[in-house]
């Protein structure tokens, strides 16, 4: 069974590789490379796969899941400038792909029970763009 919990955070970012020229960054990232950054209302969907615990009837304790997502993602990222305030984005370009990978890294060890594990991280940058990441290399 799959269980999905949603969370939101608002953050600013800029997609620029310091090793590249302005023109190269613009070609690669478009308006996302504008030097002073811009922001999004990110929407995160965390999906856990597992079997309901025979005693509690739950795949995963939802209150605990909310606390984990808040502690690992929302508290450190909400209303922050990702490049300046949230490592590793001081040295990794905070594309939607890279943010999804970072969220996976922060969550997957904390969502590991005998009956349940993290299945997918879906991160919406806008209503028209999202990525799905399931921990693959």
């Amino acid at each position: 069974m799959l269980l999905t919990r949603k969370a939101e955070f608002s953050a600013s970012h800029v997609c620029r590789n310091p090793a590249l020229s302005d023109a190269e960054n613009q070609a690669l990232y478009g308006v996302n490379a504008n030097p002073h950054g811009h922001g999004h209302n990110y929407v995160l969907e965390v999906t856990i796969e597992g079997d309901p615990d025979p005693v509690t009837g739950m795949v995963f304790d939802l209150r605990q899941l909310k606390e984990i997502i808040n502690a690992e993602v929302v508290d450190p990222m909400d209303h922050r400038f990702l490049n300046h305030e949230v490592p590793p984005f001081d040295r990794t370009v905070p594309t939607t792909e890279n943010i999804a990978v970072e969220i996976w890294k922060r969550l997957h060890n904390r969502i590991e029970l005998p009956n349940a594990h993290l299945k997918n991280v879906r991160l919406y940058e806008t209503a028209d763009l999202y990525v799905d990441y399931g921990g693959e290399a």
Partner: protein
Amino acid sequence: MRLTRRYHFAASHRLNTDALTPEENASLYGKCNNPFGHGHDYVLDVSVEGPVDASGQIVGREALDTLVEQQVLDRVDHRNLNCDLPELRDRVPTTENLASVIEDLLTRQWSLPARLARVRISETARNTFELETK
């Protein structure tokens, strides 16, 4: 990793096949068989799949947008699917067939590093059609 980008287009169509009688068409397609056609605000989700490259992206947004605009949106937006899309002239423009045509239009000119993984179209908020590509 999979990235999904959403696009919007408005188009009209009429569901009717010469293989059936007018009565059979009316019975099969209901209101969608209305002789003068009707329209929808379609929502198209294009999913691509692949590894994240050195830029931190599966695919450049502008490259994907340009491809979808040129191959699909320019052909279907504010068009009549029965008359304006040669690929649908001999097929009923159901959203099933439209999904398959869009997959073909995209793969025909696909030049992106990531693979086209899925085409999903919503005809209305209540009807959605998904095509996983092989």
